[in-house]
Protein backbone atom coordinates (compact mmCIF):
# COMPACT_ATOMS: atom_id res chain seq x y z
CA UNK A 1 0.00 0.00 0.00
CA UNK A 2 2.90 2.33 0.69
CA UNK A 3 3.82 2.34 -2.97
CA UNK A 4 0.44 3.75 -3.92
CA UNK A 5 0.81 6.88 -5.95
CA UNK A 6 -1.15 9.41 -4.00
CA UNK A 7 -3.15 11.47 -6.36
CA UNK A 8 -5.43 14.23 -5.28
CA UNK A 9 -8.95 13.12 -6.18
CA UNK A 10 -10.20 14.95 -9.21
CA UNK A 11 -13.10 17.23 -8.33
CA UNK A 12 -16.34 15.51 -9.12
CA UNK A 13 -18.29 17.67 -11.56
CA UNK A 14 -21.53 15.98 -10.56
CA UNK A 15 -21.15 16.14 -6.83
CA UNK A 16 -23.68 18.28 -5.01
CA UNK A 17 -21.12 19.33 -2.42
CA UNK A 18 -21.53 23.01 -3.01
CA UNK A 19 -25.03 23.11 -4.36
CA UNK A 20 -27.11 21.55 -1.63
CA UNK A 21 -25.50 22.95 1.44
CA UNK A 22 -23.86 19.64 2.40
CA UNK A 23 -21.43 19.44 5.30
CA UNK A 24 -18.16 17.57 5.50
CA UNK A 25 -18.23 14.00 6.72
CA UNK A 26 -15.19 13.51 9.00
CA UNK A 27 -14.52 10.08 7.48
CA UNK A 28 -14.54 11.22 3.86
CA UNK A 29 -12.45 14.35 3.59
CA UNK A 30 -8.98 13.32 4.69
CA UNK A 31 -5.66 14.26 3.17
CA UNK A 32 -3.67 11.55 1.32
CA UNK A 33 -1.26 11.41 4.28
CA UNK A 34 -4.10 10.82 6.71
CA UNK A 35 -5.54 8.10 4.47
CA UNK A 36 -2.16 6.35 4.30
CA UNK A 37 -1.94 6.53 8.07
CA UNK A 38 -5.38 4.93 8.25
CA UNK A 39 -4.21 2.13 5.95
CA UNK A 40 -1.34 1.33 8.32
CA UNK A 41 -3.87 1.21 11.15
CA UNK A 42 -6.04 -1.23 9.17
CA UNK A 43 -3.09 -3.57 8.72
CA UNK A 44 -2.29 -3.48 12.45
CA UNK A 45 -5.94 -4.23 13.27
CA UNK A 46 -5.90 -7.14 10.81
CA UNK A 47 -2.85 -8.66 12.53
CA UNK A 48 -4.52 -8.18 15.92
CA UNK A 49 -7.70 -9.87 14.69
CA UNK A 50 -5.73 -12.81 13.29
CA UNK A 51 -3.89 -13.22 16.62
CA UNK A 52 -7.15 -13.04 18.56
CA UNK A 53 -8.62 -15.73 16.30
CA UNK A 54 -5.68 -17.95 17.24
CA UNK A 55 -6.28 -17.18 20.93
CA UNK A 56 -9.99 -18.08 20.56
CA UNK A 57 -9.13 -21.47 19.08
CA UNK A 58 -6.36 -22.01 21.64
CA UNK A 59 -8.75 -21.37 24.54
CA UNK A 60 -11.24 -23.87 23.09
CA UNK A 61 -8.62 -26.65 23.20
CA UNK A 62 -7.70 -25.97 26.84
CA UNK A 63 -10.84 -27.79 28.09
CA UNK A 64 -11.75 -25.18 30.69
CA UNK A 65 -14.98 -25.51 32.64
CA UNK A 66 -17.92 -24.43 30.45
CA UNK A 67 -18.61 -21.11 32.26
CA UNK A 68 -14.94 -20.08 31.98
CA UNK A 69 -14.66 -21.26 28.37
CA UNK A 70 -17.85 -19.40 27.39
CA UNK A 71 -16.78 -16.22 29.20
CA UNK A 72 -13.27 -16.30 27.68
CA UNK A 73 -14.54 -16.97 24.15
CA UNK A 74 -17.14 -14.20 24.36
CA UNK A 75 -14.63 -11.72 25.79
CA UNK A 76 -12.18 -12.40 22.95
CA UNK A 77 -15.03 -12.20 20.41
CA UNK A 78 -16.13 -8.88 21.93
CA UNK A 79 -12.61 -7.47 21.63
CA UNK A 80 -12.54 -8.55 17.98
CA UNK A 81 -15.97 -6.99 17.43
CA UNK A 82 -14.72 -3.74 19.01
CA UNK A 83 -11.74 -3.66 16.63
CA UNK A 84 -13.91 -4.29 13.55
CA UNK A 85 -16.64 -1.84 14.57
CA UNK A 86 -14.26 0.78 15.94
CA UNK A 87 -11.67 0.86 13.17
CA UNK A 88 -13.11 -0.74 10.02
CA UNK A 89 -16.60 0.71 10.55
CA UNK A 90 -15.13 3.95 11.97
CA UNK A 91 -17.41 3.95 14.98
CA UNK A 92 -14.67 5.60 17.03
CA UNK A 93 -15.14 8.78 15.00
CA UNK A 94 -18.72 8.67 13.83
CA UNK A 95 -21.64 11.10 13.94
CA UNK A 96 -23.88 11.30 17.00
CA UNK A 97 -26.92 10.19 14.99
CA UNK A 98 -25.25 6.85 14.29
CA UNK A 99 -24.54 6.42 17.99
CA UNK A 100 -28.21 7.16 18.73
CA UNK A 101 -29.34 4.52 16.21
CA UNK A 102 -26.91 2.03 17.71
CA UNK A 103 -27.95 2.80 21.30
CA UNK A 104 -31.57 1.97 20.46
CA UNK A 105 -30.43 -1.17 18.63
CA UNK A 106 -28.28 -2.32 21.53
CA UNK A 107 -31.19 -1.82 23.94
CA UNK A 108 -33.58 -3.99 21.91
CA UNK A 109 -30.84 -6.53 21.15
CA UNK A 110 -30.21 -6.82 24.90
CA UNK A 111 -33.92 -7.44 25.43
CA UNK A 112 -33.76 -10.25 22.87
CA UNK A 113 -30.87 -11.90 24.66
CA UNK A 114 -32.44 -11.35 28.08
CA UNK A 115 -35.75 -13.00 27.11
CA UNK A 116 -34.47 -16.61 26.98
CA UNK A 117 -32.61 -16.16 30.27
CA UNK A 118 -35.89 -15.10 31.81
CA UNK A 119 -37.42 -18.33 30.54
CA UNK A 120 -34.41 -20.20 31.91
CA UNK A 121 -35.12 -18.95 35.44
CA UNK A 122 -38.83 -19.75 35.07
CA UNK A 123 -37.84 -23.29 34.15
CA UNK A 124 -35.86 -23.76 37.34
CA UNK A 125 -38.50 -22.01 39.43
CA UNK A 126 -41.13 -24.65 38.71
Amino acid at each position, binding site marked *: *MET*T*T*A*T*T*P*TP*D*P*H*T*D*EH*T*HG*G*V*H*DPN*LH*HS*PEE*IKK*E*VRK*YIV*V*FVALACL*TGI*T*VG*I*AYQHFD*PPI*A*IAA*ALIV*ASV*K*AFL*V*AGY*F*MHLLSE*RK*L*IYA*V*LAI*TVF*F*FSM*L*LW*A*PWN*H*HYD*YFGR
Partner: protein
Amino acid sequence: MHIEIPYNSTARPDTGLYNAKLGIWLFLASEVMLFGALFSSLILLRTGVPHWPHGRDEGLNIPLATLNTLILIGSSVSVVLAWANLRLGNLKKGRIWLGVTLMCALGFMVIKAIEYTDKFKLGHFPKTNNFYAIYFTLTGLHGLHVLGGMIVFAYLIGPGAKMWDTERTRYTNRIEVVGLYWHFVDLVWIFLFPVLYLL
Protein backbone atom coordinates in the same frame (compact mmCIF):
# COMPACT_ATOMS: atom_id res chain seq x y z
CA MET B 1 -34.87 16.75 -17.53
CA HIS B 2 -32.10 15.82 -15.11
CA ILE B 3 -33.10 15.97 -11.49
CA GLU B 4 -30.24 15.52 -9.06
CA ILE B 5 -30.95 13.59 -5.90
CA PRO B 6 -29.51 15.60 -3.03
CA TYR B 7 -27.16 14.33 -0.35
CA ASN B 8 -25.97 11.15 -2.02
CA SER B 9 -22.46 12.57 -2.27
CA THR B 10 -22.21 14.96 0.63
CA ALA B 11 -23.60 15.03 4.12
CA ARG B 12 -26.92 16.57 5.01
CA PRO B 13 -26.53 19.54 7.34
CA ASP B 14 -29.06 18.16 9.83
CA THR B 15 -27.79 14.56 10.07
CA GLY B 16 -24.14 15.18 9.26
CA LEU B 17 -24.26 12.12 7.00
CA TYR B 18 -24.95 11.43 3.36
CA ASN B 19 -28.27 9.64 3.00
CA ALA B 20 -26.97 6.22 2.00
CA LYS B 21 -24.79 6.07 5.09
CA LEU B 22 -27.68 6.72 7.45
CA GLY B 23 -29.72 4.25 5.40
CA ILE B 24 -27.17 1.44 5.72
CA TRP B 25 -26.88 1.96 9.48
CA LEU B 26 -30.67 1.73 9.84
CA PHE B 27 -30.58 -1.43 7.72
CA LEU B 28 -27.80 -2.86 9.88
CA ALA B 29 -29.90 -2.10 12.96
CA SER B 30 -32.64 -4.30 11.51
CA GLU B 31 -30.02 -6.96 10.73
CA VAL B 32 -28.85 -6.93 14.34
CA MET B 33 -32.42 -7.72 15.37
CA LEU B 34 -32.70 -10.49 12.75
CA PHE B 35 -29.56 -12.28 13.92
CA GLY B 36 -30.34 -11.31 17.51
CA ALA B 37 -33.58 -13.29 17.34
CA LEU B 38 -31.66 -16.36 16.19
CA PHE B 39 -28.95 -15.93 18.83
CA SER B 40 -31.78 -15.62 21.34
CA SER B 41 -33.21 -18.91 20.03
CA LEU B 42 -29.81 -20.52 20.42
CA ILE B 43 -29.62 -19.41 24.07
CA LEU B 44 -33.14 -20.72 24.64
CA LEU B 45 -32.32 -24.10 23.11
CA ARG B 46 -28.99 -24.35 24.86
CA THR B 47 -30.20 -23.44 28.35
CA GLY B 48 -33.33 -25.56 28.01
CA VAL B 49 -31.49 -28.90 28.05
CA PRO B 50 -29.11 -30.43 30.61
CA HIS B 51 -26.53 -31.25 27.91
CA TRP B 52 -25.72 -29.27 24.78
CA PRO B 53 -23.22 -30.82 22.35
CA HIS B 54 -19.87 -29.21 21.57
CA GLY B 55 -19.44 -28.31 17.94
CA ARG B 56 -16.27 -30.40 17.71
CA ASP B 57 -18.07 -33.41 19.26
CA GLU B 58 -20.72 -33.07 16.57
CA GLY B 59 -18.01 -33.26 13.92
CA LEU B 60 -17.81 -29.57 12.96
CA ASN B 61 -14.55 -28.85 11.18
CA ILE B 62 -12.70 -26.36 13.39
CA PRO B 63 -9.59 -25.92 11.15
CA LEU B 64 -11.80 -25.09 8.16
CA ALA B 65 -13.93 -22.72 10.23
CA THR B 66 -10.76 -21.04 11.56
CA LEU B 67 -9.55 -20.61 7.99
CA ASN B 68 -12.93 -19.11 7.08
CA THR B 69 -12.63 -16.68 9.99
CA LEU B 70 -9.23 -15.52 8.74
CA ILE B 71 -10.56 -15.22 5.18
CA LEU B 72 -13.48 -13.08 6.32
CA ILE B 73 -11.23 -10.86 8.45
CA GLY B 74 -8.91 -10.51 5.45
CA SER B 75 -11.84 -9.51 3.26
CA SER B 76 -12.82 -6.82 5.77
CA VAL B 77 -9.33 -5.37 5.43
CA SER B 78 -9.36 -5.57 1.64
CA VAL B 79 -12.65 -3.66 1.41
CA VAL B 80 -11.34 -0.80 3.57
CA LEU B 81 -8.17 -0.77 1.45
CA ALA B 82 -10.39 -0.48 -1.65
CA TRP B 83 -12.20 2.46 -0.07
CA ALA B 84 -8.91 4.08 0.94
CA ASN B 85 -7.53 3.77 -2.61
CA LEU B 86 -10.67 5.27 -4.11
CA ARG B 87 -10.39 8.20 -1.70
CA LEU B 88 -6.83 8.60 -3.00
CA GLY B 89 -8.26 8.77 -6.52
CA ASN B 90 -6.88 5.37 -7.58
CA LEU B 91 -9.69 3.39 -9.21
CA LYS B 92 -7.40 0.65 -10.51
CA LYS B 93 -6.12 -0.30 -7.06
CA GLY B 94 -9.57 0.18 -5.59
CA ARG B 95 -10.99 -2.36 -8.01
CA ILE B 96 -8.13 -4.78 -7.35
CA TRP B 97 -8.88 -4.72 -3.62
CA LEU B 98 -12.59 -5.11 -4.32
CA GLY B 99 -11.64 -8.13 -6.44
CA VAL B 100 -9.64 -9.53 -3.53
CA THR B 101 -12.69 -9.06 -1.31
CA LEU B 102 -14.88 -10.88 -3.83
CA MET B 103 -12.39 -13.75 -4.05
CA CYS B 104 -12.27 -14.01 -0.25
CA ALA B 105 -16.07 -14.16 -0.18
CA LEU B 106 -16.00 -16.87 -2.83
CA GLY B 107 -13.39 -18.79 -0.84
CA PHE B 108 -15.56 -18.53 2.26
CA MET B 109 -18.55 -19.94 0.38
CA VAL B 110 -16.53 -22.80 -1.14
CA ILE B 111 -15.27 -23.81 2.30
CA LYS B 112 -18.80 -23.55 3.68
CA ALA B 113 -20.03 -25.77 0.84
CA ILE B 114 -17.33 -28.35 1.69
CA GLU B 115 -18.43 -28.28 5.33
CA TYR B 116 -22.11 -28.66 4.43
CA THR B 117 -21.35 -31.52 2.02
CA ASP B 118 -19.42 -33.36 4.74
CA LYS B 119 -22.34 -32.96 7.14
CA PHE B 120 -24.88 -34.18 4.58
CA LYS B 121 -22.71 -37.21 3.78
CA LEU B 122 -22.73 -38.09 7.48
CA GLY B 123 -26.51 -37.78 7.52
CA HIS B 124 -26.55 -34.54 9.50
CA PHE B 125 -29.40 -32.31 8.43
CA PRO B 126 -31.36 -29.51 10.09
CA LYS B 127 -33.97 -32.08 11.13
CA THR B 128 -31.32 -34.27 12.86
CA ASN B 129 -31.41 -32.42 16.18
CA ASN B 130 -31.70 -28.94 17.67
CA PHE B 131 -27.96 -28.36 17.41
CA TYR B 132 -27.92 -28.92 13.67
CA ALA B 133 -31.20 -27.03 13.26
CA ILE B 134 -29.73 -23.86 14.76
CA TYR B 135 -26.31 -24.49 13.15
CA PHE B 136 -27.75 -24.69 9.63
CA THR B 137 -30.17 -21.81 10.24
CA LEU B 138 -27.51 -19.42 11.53
CA THR B 139 -24.72 -20.37 9.14
CA GLY B 140 -27.18 -20.61 6.22
CA LEU B 141 -28.56 -17.12 6.86
CA HIS B 142 -25.03 -15.81 7.26
CA GLY B 143 -24.05 -17.52 4.00
CA LEU B 144 -26.95 -15.82 2.24
CA HIS B 145 -25.60 -12.48 3.47
CA VAL B 146 -22.16 -13.37 2.09
CA LEU B 147 -23.79 -14.24 -1.23
CA GLY B 148 -25.66 -10.92 -1.23
CA GLY B 149 -22.40 -9.08 -0.61
CA MET B 150 -20.72 -10.97 -3.47
CA ILE B 151 -23.43 -9.86 -5.91
CA VAL B 152 -23.02 -6.23 -4.86
CA PHE B 153 -19.21 -6.41 -5.05
CA ALA B 154 -19.38 -7.99 -8.52
CA TYR B 155 -21.66 -5.19 -9.69
CA LEU B 156 -19.46 -2.46 -8.22
CA ILE B 157 -16.30 -3.94 -9.75
CA GLY B 158 -18.00 -4.36 -13.14
CA PRO B 159 -20.81 -2.24 -14.55
CA GLY B 160 -21.25 -0.19 -11.38
CA ALA B 161 -17.71 1.19 -11.72
CA LYS B 162 -18.80 3.35 -14.65
CA MET B 163 -20.09 5.80 -12.09
CA TRP B 164 -16.44 6.64 -11.32
CA ASP B 165 -16.25 8.57 -14.59
CA THR B 166 -19.11 10.88 -13.73
CA GLU B 167 -19.69 10.78 -9.96
CA ARG B 168 -16.52 9.79 -8.12
CA THR B 169 -17.64 10.79 -4.66
CA ARG B 170 -20.91 8.90 -5.02
CA TYR B 171 -19.10 5.77 -6.22
CA THR B 172 -16.63 6.02 -3.35
CA ASN B 173 -19.53 6.41 -0.94
CA ARG B 174 -21.11 3.26 -2.37
CA ILE B 175 -17.95 1.35 -1.55
CA GLU B 176 -18.05 2.71 2.00
CA VAL B 177 -21.69 1.63 2.35
CA VAL B 178 -21.14 -1.90 1.01
CA GLY B 179 -18.03 -2.03 3.21
CA LEU B 180 -20.11 -1.27 6.31
CA TYR B 181 -22.47 -4.08 5.35
CA TRP B 182 -19.51 -6.40 4.80
CA HIS B 183 -17.98 -5.59 8.18
CA PHE B 184 -21.32 -6.44 9.77
CA VAL B 185 -21.25 -9.84 8.03
CA ASP B 186 -17.75 -10.27 9.47
CA LEU B 187 -18.98 -9.24 12.95
CA VAL B 188 -21.73 -11.85 12.88
CA TRP B 189 -19.21 -14.54 11.99
CA ILE B 190 -16.87 -13.40 14.77
CA PHE B 191 -19.59 -14.46 17.24
CA LEU B 192 -20.92 -17.44 15.28
CA PHE B 193 -17.51 -19.10 15.10
CA PRO B 194 -16.88 -19.56 18.84
CA VAL B 195 -20.54 -20.03 19.76
CA LEU B 196 -21.22 -22.82 17.25
CA TYR B 197 -17.83 -24.42 16.73
CA LEU B 198 -15.85 -23.98 19.91
CA LEU B 199 -18.22 -23.91 22.89
